[in-house]
């Protein structure tokens, strides 16, 4: 399944696109060293008189000194009197943020001198009086501001005034028609704040039945009301709303208060996508700390209208937690009892509760590897129940057994018999990955070399063998390749008088080998 190295290389050689490479020979990055050297030499050159602060002050890069986040911590930390002047560098008053930029395409350069009316200051024009300096764009005054004294606003004008943050009175909208008009204008303005304000007024002045009825055809407003009720924890009204919206006879199991709001929101947002509602209820399990309660909650979730695939996953989640609870109880006792060797030698670092599936499998491969298939903690049983892919199972078991240095178990994982009864080593992973995993679990060279030898590609095998110091494999591979030069080269790297060195000598002196070079 893994692309072998040979394949990969083939692929790259024939491939029409280049990968992004940083070749070490690459001129560009040998130049990095060059510039580093240059920097260093300059540093010493000017070191005599400078200290770093000196550089910081004149820096044109806009140092963080004096920035707000810096001074927040600064002034908060200092308990001194307010008259103490912190030693900020003086920032010249007309260095607005925009003028800090010197890029060729700056806003400030674009905007200079283009003001026609003269009433507006652009970001770049920093007046000398800092108190009237602008930092961000400012809206001009709308005409309507000058007729503030008029109080007879239409619903539309009222909404506009509210958007501008002006004081308005909603009390004069008395008829249902006016109130709904007000709401519709608010919704059309897309300003959630105004919508909420109008809703608060409507909620106060309309009967629930009328309000709910009217909102049914106004989904946006309804969403805002639900949000508002959820946030203000108005449980009673939410429940009433829920009843008025759901088909009669619908019941929900253990619906928490917040969840109810979510359910309503999603009922509306997803236009009846029941899967979303189900997922939201499922989500609630995350807020339940007690494992038994969480398990029971998940069990309840099983009857929710999930999509078929999700339903299978939620079932798995429930089954997993159910097992974890059992395993945790048993193992905690076993550990306390002090009679099970593996728990004594390798005390458990954490509880297995709420761990992911694969972590649980690893745990079971570690502590319960040899159990019979009937138990909940047996790895093979877990593999079957949760339909764990061959590769995942293999990687997990390999890592767990290697961690325990149970090399015979590791070996057994690869062994398969063909119909003649011969054994041979097979792996769903490339042997390169196998070696990688073993090496990460600090397998000794004797173990590693068994697997390095199984790497098919000769070059890859040699590089792995060299990396892990499996000399025999390197030597044998070169011998098979009849590469005398490489053998000679490798001999130099070996320890004088070692068995490996002698082996190379013997090979080189063997007249029966026809070297290719």
């Amino acid at each position, binding site marked *: 399944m893994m692309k072998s190295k040979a394949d990969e290389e083939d692929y790259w050689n024939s491939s029409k696109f280049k990968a992004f490479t940083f070749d070490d020979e690459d001129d560009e990055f040998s130049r990095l060293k060059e510039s580093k050297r240059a920097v260093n030499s300059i540093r010493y050159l*000017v070191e005599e008189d400078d200290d770093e602060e000196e550089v910081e002050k004149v820096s044109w890069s806009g140092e963080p000194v004096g920035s707000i986040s810096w001074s927040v911590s600064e002034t908060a930390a200092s308990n001194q009197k*307010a008259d103490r002047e912190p030693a900020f560098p003086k920032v010249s008053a007309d260095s607005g943020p925009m003028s800090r930029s010197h890029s060729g395409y700056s806003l400030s350069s674009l905007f200079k001198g283009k003001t026609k009316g003269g009433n507006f200051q652009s970001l770049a024009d920093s007046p000398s009086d800092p108190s009237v300096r602008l930092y961000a764009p400012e809206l001009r005054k709308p005409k309507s501001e000058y007729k503030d004294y008029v109080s007879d606003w239409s619903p539309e004008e009222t909404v506009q005034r509210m958007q501008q943050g002006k004081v308005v009175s909603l009390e004069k909208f008395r008829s249902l028609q006016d109130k709904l008009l007000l709401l519709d204008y608010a919704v059309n303005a897309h300003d959630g704040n105004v919508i909420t304000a109008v809703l608060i007024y409507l909620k106060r002045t309309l009967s629930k039945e009328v309000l709910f009825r009217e909102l049914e055809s106004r989904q946006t407003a309804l969403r805002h009301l639900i949000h508002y009720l959820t946030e203000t924890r108005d449980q009673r009204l939410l429940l009433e709303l829920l009843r008025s919206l759901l088909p009669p006879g619908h019941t929900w199991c253990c619906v928490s208060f917040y969840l109810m709001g979510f359910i309503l929101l999603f009922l509306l947002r997803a236009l009846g996508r029941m899967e979303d509602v189900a997922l939201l209820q499922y989500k609630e399990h995350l807020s339940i700390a007690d494992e038994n309660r969480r398990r029971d909650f998940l069990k309840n979730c099983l009857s929710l209208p999930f999509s078929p695939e999700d339903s299978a996953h939620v079932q798995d989640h429930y089954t997993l937690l159910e097992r974890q609870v059992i395993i945790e109880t048993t193992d905690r006792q076993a550990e306390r009892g002090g009679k099970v060797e593996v728990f004594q030698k390798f005390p458990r670092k954490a509880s297995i509760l709420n761990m992911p599936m694969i972590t649980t499998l690893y745990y079971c491969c570690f502590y319960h590897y040899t159990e019979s298939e009937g138990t909940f903690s047996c790895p093979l049983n877990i593999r079957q129940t949760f339909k764990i892919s061959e590769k995942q199972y293999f990687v997990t078991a390999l890592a767990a057994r290697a961690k325990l240095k149970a090399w015979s178990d590791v070996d057994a994982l690869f062994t398969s018999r063909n119909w003649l009864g011969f054994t041979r080593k097979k792996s769903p992973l490339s042997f390169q990955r196998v070696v990688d995993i073993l090496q990460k679990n600090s397998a000794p060279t004797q173990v590693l070399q068994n697997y390095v030898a199984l790497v098919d590609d000769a070059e890859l095998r040699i590089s792995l063998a060299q990396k892990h110091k499996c000399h025999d494999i390197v030597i044998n591979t070169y011998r098979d390749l009849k590469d005398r030069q490489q053998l000679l080269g490798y001999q130099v790297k070996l320890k004088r008088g070692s068995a490996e060195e002698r082996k190379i000598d013997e090979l080189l002196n063997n007249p029966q080998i026809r070297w290719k070079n």
Partner: protein
Amino acid sequence: MRGNPYSILRGGWKALGTQAIVWDEYLTGPFGLIAQYSLLKEHEVEKMFTLKSGKLPSADVKNIIFFVRPRLELMDIIAENVFSEDKMHSSRDFHILFVPRRSMLCEQRLKEQGVLASFVNIDEYILDLIPYDGDLLSMEYESAFRECYLENDQTSLYHTAKGLMTLQALYGTIPQIYGKGDCARHVANMMLRMKREFAGSQNQILPVFDTLLLLDRNIDLLTPLATQLTYEGLIDEIYGITNGYVKLPPEKFAQKKQGEASKDLPTESKKLQLNSAEELYAEIRDKNFNAVGAALSKKAKIISAAFEERHNAKTVGEIKQFVSQLPHMQAARSSLANHTSIAELIKDITTSEAFFENLTVEQEFMTGVDTDKVNTYIEDCIAQKDPLIKILRLMCMQSVCNNGLKQKVFEYYKREILQTYGYEHILTLNNLEKASLLKLQTSSRNNYPTIRKTLKLWMEDANEQNPNDISYVYSGYAPLSVRLTQVLARPGWRSIEEVLKLLPGPHFEERQQLPAGLHKKRQQGENRTTLVFFLGGVSYAEIAALRFLSQMEDSGMEYIIATTKLLNGTTWIKSLMDRPESQIS
């Protein structure tokens, strides 16, 4: 003017007397970009604190001003602050400034907590678009994409339209508006309506922008998922840039003085500000990383030569001249040192096998290789328990490049992810599905190859050193969003009608009437200016590509970029993940 902090700075502020500001910590970053503490001090701001629950720190001031986002959880903290305060002092006044808008819900919450009456002032500080650089504005509205596509909440679009109105009030009515996508349409509609509502007050400013282009993020889901390969893009991918600052591992920045044995390495991370005010950074930020080494080495030579000049300084005048230049030269030197160190840090990562493998798979997907099968690399990454976001990023990319995953493939990935990272991630996967980042292939037709070919999204021979096409920012892949922008300028969208129809949402063109006399009389060779607004976020590589277009000699177009949020694939996916503690807002 009401609701604007400058008004407080200008008028009411001084009259208030001494003040302490209590900051919502999240806001200090963006505010740091627009105001320095020294300025606030001029306005009698004596102390500044971060908002924390419990008692307010003592400060001998008359006024306490809370600068906060309209979040309910913050209201509870404020209420706690106010309660504990009352017992000790009775003479202090409280004020709240909401950023960017007041919220009825929050005021309601303060009322429930029984503290609303304690506030002398409740106001808002309208901060829609924050200038990040000379050509870059961001609302830093992190949840905009999530709200629009997951929660169907268009409040962020309302703020966008408001921000654009403000911008037009300052820089003139933008005569032409183009857009692509549902959100773009929505924003344009709101802008046109707001303009009607302001009718009667003609904007008398000569327009700075010729065109506004509104682009939905969801018309180009692919680009942010790919690993950015520009210098700035990689800094963001690897270390994350927040509010123009980056925090770096300190080892490479250790100052070793001559003759001194190496002291203990600093443990605190190095914080650097990154913007175009720094000459060297402006030069290299948008380059492909493979071209950064050459640029740094060239700079090193120039600086070395400048320092060598001192040998030629013979007369007192010459020496004086040299000395006067020293501060600038030293700053240039320290800038070069910093960027050489950063480049080294990044190079360590880009030369790693893991980076190479990941990039290889990304490029396979983008060129349409084996996108319909289970990818071995993704499978292996899951088996190695690599960070979930990395897996999701690749998986989404495969889905986008294949117009959805085959059912068998999708289910296989899903099972592997849930088993390895936990079943609760079913919620995150569901979110990604809703945002169309993941989907099941419903029709057998895959549009992506057509789009790729028509828009030339993959360039075989991307020149990283001396680019001649925007595809250099991803070493081969030309960001779709920027390609659309480029085509709009020349030859126009009419030439790609078919492709536009394959992308979600409507495309449209609107014109805004200018008062007579404000029509620009263009000089020969004068550039036109387009404001490109990314609704739902933009990556640094896309910005680099637009700057590249601005600088192309024959493009005749300059681009100013605005967005709801600066993002990369990781921060973007993160914003879409299910956060159990969060509530729907």
